């Protein structure tokens, strides 16, 4: 084959080895997305086929040599109705199908494990609940729903894993979430797909889907010593949050233990489900989220806590089962500057 130029040869080899029409199907949602895709491709091929057939057929049948005199036709209401209703019906099917899929992708199951993602120009940081940090990489176990709670420090980014068929904008100032369940082990692309400035094309990374055992091993191997919740507890104490959120009956602030997931009544009468995004925003904009029955005295922590710190505190509050340790800090009025002494004690209050 040496008569082919090396460049062209390389190109052909490249073609044959890399040619693919679909990215790998590596998540639970991927086959469903592909099914909808096939349906849409089918509609398109049929639609295009019909148009092309009509055009070619008429061009042949009614070209001037064969049909020198055109027959003038006004139109046909019946036909108009036909090609209004049939496409409309197909589009409606597409709409319903697409909507079902959308709600599946954007509504995580309750048992999903949560990983935090912070996007910034131009890198991805992943924070696992156990305190493992990763840059431009994400390790996940397979066969387990994983929810990503994501936020951007600066501009819009977009977190995209084509092999999992999921993507979601990562927004400054608000958590957005997406979830997936990896089904095949392997290493997949992770892209930022929202244009975010100069090195947009280098805001990429890899997602490593591992067997649960491997994942266990990985988490054990790359822990940074303290979990997010433990970091959060430290921050919680050092910022003096405990003085108001002690859980005592006469406390100035609402009880935080087991607040996560509950419905809170706000001062304006509305009800709000406490989720990550809500927790984050109450720390930054407390005045806008007055819980009924409490005075608006909480100061804002805007500009005082980094996004990572907020994640720690949110994770801490999320897992706060009881106020035992909160009150202990209060009683001893000891601001925790050292790491919580016994990890076992720490685990007593942190779920799982």
């Amino acid at each position: 084959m040496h008569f082919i130029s090396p460049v062209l040869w390389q190109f052909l080899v490249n073609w044959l080895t890399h040619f693919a029409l679909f990215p790998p199907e590596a998540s639970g949602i991927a086959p469903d997305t592909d099914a909808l895709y096939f349906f849409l491709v089918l509609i398109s091929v049929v639609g295009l086929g019909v148009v092309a057939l009509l055009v070619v057929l008429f061009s042949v049948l009614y070209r001037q040599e064969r049909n020198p005199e055109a027959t003038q036709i006004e139109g046909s209401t019946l036909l108009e109705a036909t090609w209004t209703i049939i496409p409309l019906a197909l589009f409606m099917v597409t709409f319903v199908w697409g909507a079902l899929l959308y709600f599946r992708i954007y509504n995580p199951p309750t048992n999903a494990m949560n990983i935090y993602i912070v996007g910034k120009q131009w890198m991805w940081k992943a924070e696992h609940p156990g305190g493992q940090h990763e840059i431009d990489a994400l390790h996940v176990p397979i066969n387990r729903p994983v929810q990503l709670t994501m936020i951007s420090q600066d501009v819009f980014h977009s977190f995209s894993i084509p092999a999992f068929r999921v993507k979601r904008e990562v927004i400054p100032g608000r958590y957005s979430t997406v979830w997936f369940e990896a089904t095949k082990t392997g290493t997949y692309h992770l892209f930022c797909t929202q244009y975010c400035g100069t090195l947009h094309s280098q805001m990429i990374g890899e997602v490593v889907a591992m067997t649960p055992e491997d994942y266990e091993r990985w988490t054990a191997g790359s822990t940074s010593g303290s979990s997010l919740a433990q970091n959060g507890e430290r921050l919680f104490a050092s910022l003096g949050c405990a003085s108001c959120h002690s859980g005592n009956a006469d406390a100035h602030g609402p009880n935080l233990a087991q607040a996560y997931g509950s419905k809170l009544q706000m001062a304006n009468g509305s009800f709000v489900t406490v989720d990550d995004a809500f927790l984050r925003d109450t720390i930054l904009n407390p005045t806008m989220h007055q819980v009924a029955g409490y005075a608006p005295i909480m100061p804002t922590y805007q500009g005082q806590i980094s996004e990572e710190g907020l994640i720690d505190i949110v994770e801490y509050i999320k897992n706060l089962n009881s106020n035992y340790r909160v009150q202990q800090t209060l009683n001893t009025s000891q601001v925790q500057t050292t790491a919580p002494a016994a990890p076992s004690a720490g685990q007593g209050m942190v779920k799982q």
Partner: protein
Amino acid sequence: MSEPTQHEVLDTEPTHHATHIVSPKVYGVIFASLLFFTGLTVAASYLELGVFNAIVAIAIACIKAVLVILFFMHVKYSSRLTKLTVAAGFFTFFVLITMSLTDYISRAWGLW
């Protein structure tokens, strides 16, 4: 296809009557009521009306705007085309607001 008669072709239906001159008296009355409504809206804002404060303010502003449009801007005496044009403008503005609101009122917890 029906062949239109010459009469139909040249049928000119004026869309706008010859200039309708509004008398200064009308202007005067409108002017006075605009000033009156200005006073009213300021006064109303000092009353505790709860959610109706905003509604009253907007309603008075709308009345004033309608007065200006109808009389100062002569829309009352104008062709249907002009009326439709004005309506189209406010309709599109309405679309902008309502369709944006579909997002803002249904966000997970009010804000973002």
